[in-house]
Structures are given as C-alpha cells and as structure tokens.
C-alpha cells in the first residue's frame, strides 16, 4: 500500500491504479457514514460520488493538512448533512440537551447470549432499528468512533466539534443503544 503522499502524487498524474487504491480504501467507509446519516442507500451512493468528484477537483490544491481519509470523511459528512437538511429543513441536527435517555432501566444480562443467538437477521434488524432511533448528532459520532474505529480527535475534526463533545455524545449513544437492545432482548427471552 503506497504511502499517502505518494498516493496523492499518483492521483495528480491521473494514475488509474491510484484511483483504484483510493476507491478500494475509502468508498465503503464513505458509504457507511453517509448511509448511517441519511438512512437511504441511493442518497448514500450520491454522497460517495460527490465526495470523490470533490477530491478530483481539489487534487492540485490538496495541501495535506489533514490525512486523506479524514478529509474524505469530512467532505462526506458535510455532504450527507446538507442532503439531510434539504430533506428535512425544519429538523434540528444539533445534539439535544441532557434529555437523551434516562439512566439504565433494563438490567437483564444478555451479554452472555451465545454467539449464534446474536447473529440472526432479527438481531441485525434490531441493531438497525436502534441506531436509526438515535438523533443524527449522536449517530454520526457512534459510527465514526465504533464502526469506523476513528479516534476522538479525528471524529472531532470531521464533525467540527470539540473532543469533549465527541466523548459526551459517544457516551450517551452507547447507553441509548444498550437500552434499546436490552428492550429487544428482553422481549425475545
């Protein structure tokens, strides 16, 4: 895998192999973030297209102040949020105050369920339903930190937040999702 500066130089030369490398490395990541924000696969494809087209436009002026991946995520995040605002202009995308979920109420221990029981289509549906119920501001932090495994600082840079705000949102998102899944598993057991 070429290093990032070499990759950007190859992209500037319009090397097809460099494009293939960047697409393989980032297309699914951008798609997951956009699909997570928009909950719409077709729109997520549009964000992938727009993000790469923006990269091609900016190649000659790309200064490398951010890592390429962070830059792509930031363009994709802004693109997805713009689409969301156009779709639902009256909905606030900001994080709610302290109202996201009460203290844990469901205390059944489902952490030891056998792996087989946790990999069914029903569980996948429960995971999708739970994360869809999270406000966007929390959902995006959770996706970037837990699914994409980015650091707090990278997530903060992508979303133009402080590191402290990322930590708070991640904490609330984890507890919210835990509670939702506990409800689901309590119903099943």
């Amino acid at each position, binding site marked *: 895998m070429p290093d990032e500066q070499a990759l950007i130089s190859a992209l500037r030369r319009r090397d097809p192999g460099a494009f293939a490398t960047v697409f393989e490395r980032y297309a699914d990541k951008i798609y997951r973030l956009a699909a997570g924000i928009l909950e719409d696969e077709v729109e997520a494809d549009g964000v992938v297209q727009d993000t790469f087209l923006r990269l091609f436009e900016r190649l000659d002026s790309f200064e490398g102040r951010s890592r390429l991946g962070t830059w792509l995520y930031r363009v994709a995040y802004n693109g997805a949020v713009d689409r969301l605002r156009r779709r639902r202009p009256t909905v606030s995308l900001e994080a709610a105050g302290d109202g996201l979920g009460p203290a844990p109420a469901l205390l059944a221990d489902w952490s030891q369920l056998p792996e087989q029981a946790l990999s069914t289509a029903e569980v996948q549906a429960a995971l999708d339903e739970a994360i869809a119920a999270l406000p966007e501001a929390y959902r995006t932090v959770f996706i970037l930190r837990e*699914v994409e495994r980015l650091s707090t600082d990278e997530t903060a840079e992508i979303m133009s937040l402080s590191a402290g705000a990322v930590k708070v949102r991640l904490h609330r998102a984890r*507890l919210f999702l835990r509670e939702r899944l506990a409800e689901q598993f309590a119903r099943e057991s």
Partner: protein
Amino acid sequence: MTCDELLAYLSDYIDQNLDAELTAAAQEHLASCQNCRVVLDTTQQTIFLYREQGRRQIPASRRQRLFEQLEAAFLKKDSDGDL
C-alpha cells in the same frame, strides 16, 4: 464510588481513559454491584455487535457501477463530467 458515578465514568472506564485511582474505585464498585456489572457487560456487548455487524459495504453491482463512473470522471473520459 456510587452507581451514578460509575455510570458517568462508564465510557471512560471502557476506553481505559480513567486514572489509576478512579479505575480502582470503579473496579471495587463493579465487584460488589451486580446491576452496574450488567450495564457494563451489556454496553460492551452493544459496542461489540455494532463493530462486528455494522461494517456493511456498497452492494456489489452498485459498487462496480460507481467505480466505473468515477474512474471515467477521474480519467476525464467523460468530457461532460456528468454522472
């Protein structure tokens, strides 16, 4: 450490961001509080499930089409740049 304090520190505990003193206090509380242990275990399991099952990919046929369209734009084969 109380249950409320444990809950406030839960993410930092999971991420191993607490200092030694708070980590020890959290561990002491967890050793004697079944409810907090369940919240910790199920939160960690929640994170695990999303990490394992949240990594969806662009479906293959659409992925291939996206690749071809973007490659054409990249190589400027498509002079209009119209995708």
